[in-house]
């Protein structure tokens, strides 16, 4: 707690969130240092998605603090959050299926003023994900599930993320595709982007993460280096089951 604020991409302190009368987050605290991949593990309904939604400004916090790159963003609007380089790839990919792949990528750069920068970043995404380049004029909905996930990540890259928050990128995908997605996330991280990775697929997430948190009923119950958590019998029993 005595570290300087710089070097921290995201700090969530004591966050409480209610959905109506449901107490979804109960004093949740996590930290993502710059350059890290941090996994947030837990079962359905544990509060993982709510955590990301409140960072994104989509769900209001009842109490607690969210600090992104040294600035308090607890009450910031979603577009302010995006403007600060905190980019959320939502659960279920949420690509715009009736818009073309190219338009989806352009929307990722909606807040980027300079069109040349957007074009440049889209070109980079096409370089990394040539499948998207081949189909740039097609509607997003024509892509397979794995390709849609790639598009969702590519779309986030066009925004120029400093912190990328991914919500269940492996959901519903074949193991081979999951591996590809995780490799993509590692690659993005190596280029300097911090990553907060929400996953039910603990095995895949722990393999690429530096540190991890386990969330249960809106609270953090375990945290530590990914390798330690992967060896922890509580994690093995609950999330890595044989």
């Amino acid at each position, binding site marked *: 707690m005595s570290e300087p604020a710089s070097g921290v991409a995201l700090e969530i302190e004591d966050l409480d969130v209610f959905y109506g009368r449901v107490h979804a987050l109960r004093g949740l605290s996590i930290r993502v240092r710059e350059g890290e991949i941090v996994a947030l593990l837990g079962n359905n309904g544990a509060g993982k998605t709510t955590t990301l939604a409140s960072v994104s400004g989509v769900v209001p916090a009842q109490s607690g603090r969210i600090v992104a790159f040294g600035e308090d963003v607890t009450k910031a609007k*979603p577009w302010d959050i995006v403007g600060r380089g905190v980019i959320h790839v939502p659960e279920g990919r949420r690509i715009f299926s009736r818009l073309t792949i190219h338009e989806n990528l352009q929307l990722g750069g909606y807040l980027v003023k300079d069109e040349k920068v957007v074009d440049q970043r889209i070109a980079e995404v096409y370089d990394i994900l040539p499948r998207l380049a081949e189909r740039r004029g097609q509607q997003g909905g024509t892509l*397979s599930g794995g390709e849609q996930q790639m598009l969702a990540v590519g779309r986030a890259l066009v925004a120029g993320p400093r912190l990328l928050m991914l919500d269940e990128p492996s959901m519903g995908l074949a193991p081979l595709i999951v591996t590809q997605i995780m490799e993509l996330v590692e690659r993005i991280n190596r280029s300097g982007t911090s990553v907060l990775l929400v996953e039910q697929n603990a095995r895949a997430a722990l393999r690429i993460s530096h540190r991890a948190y386990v969330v249960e009923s809106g609270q953090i119950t375990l945290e530590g280096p990914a390798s330690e958590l992967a060896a922890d019998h509580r994690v093995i029993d609950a999330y890595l089951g044989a």
Partner: protein
Amino acid sequence: MSQLLWNGLFVGSFYALVALGYSMVYGIIKLLNFAHGDIYMLGAFAGFGLLTMAGAMATSASFLALFVVLLVAMLATGTSGLILERVAYRPLRGAPRLSVLITAVGASFALEYGMRLVAGPNPQVYPIRLEGTTVHVLGARVTLQQLALVAIAILLMIGLQWLIMGTGTGRAMRAISQDPKASLYMGINVNSVIARTFFIGSALAGAAGVMAGAYYGKIDFLMGFLIGLKAFTAAVIGGIGNIKGAMLGGLVLGMLETFGTAWLGGEWRDVFAFGFLILFLTLRPTGLLGERVTERV
């Protein structure tokens, strides 16, 4: 025959202008904005007020006067649309759709009877008529002013099409219409884009209001009621929420009405229009251009 075609094109082009606003608003917030026809009425009255103030100059009905009146009326109705959205609809974002629909009906009455208070219950004679030089186009008698208005309507529609398909704002509108929540994650200020949609749709309706005033020569505070329903019909015929569909629907409705009237007599005009509404709602509720897109999950 070609006279009928021309009349159908003329009437159809301002149905299309009104239908566009209907369809855009429906597309983006899934609201049937029943006050939209009254925005069109406001446009007609804004033009009327302006022309009356300008007095003698306007009666000459020069192209320039027409153009300026159109522009000012569009600004006025665009702003009215912004206020309408802000006051009546935004507070209800997230409320059940029926509540918003009832609010729209209320807003419609408020605009109609508000105008009745200002302008009185009697019809006003429009100080500008489209009776300038007549030219013959393919056998139809057409005035230059009519020609100009249709040209302006077409230009407005081309401009709108460009805005929707070729600009960031248009992309944002299409994104919101598909998934408002995901649009937030793109950094789109959803409320501001919705407000812009209301402004544009209302401005187009305002242009149509001036055109209608000049074409029919008479306006009153209830004139928006019927055109609202007609524009709704046009939007449904084309496929509601679909921009090209609204343009096509307006044109089709204008033609159907014109030819139907010539065939059966003027008193059947509205029967004809709403007969087609019922026909489409029953047989092809997605309209001519609306299609169900299969989405893979």
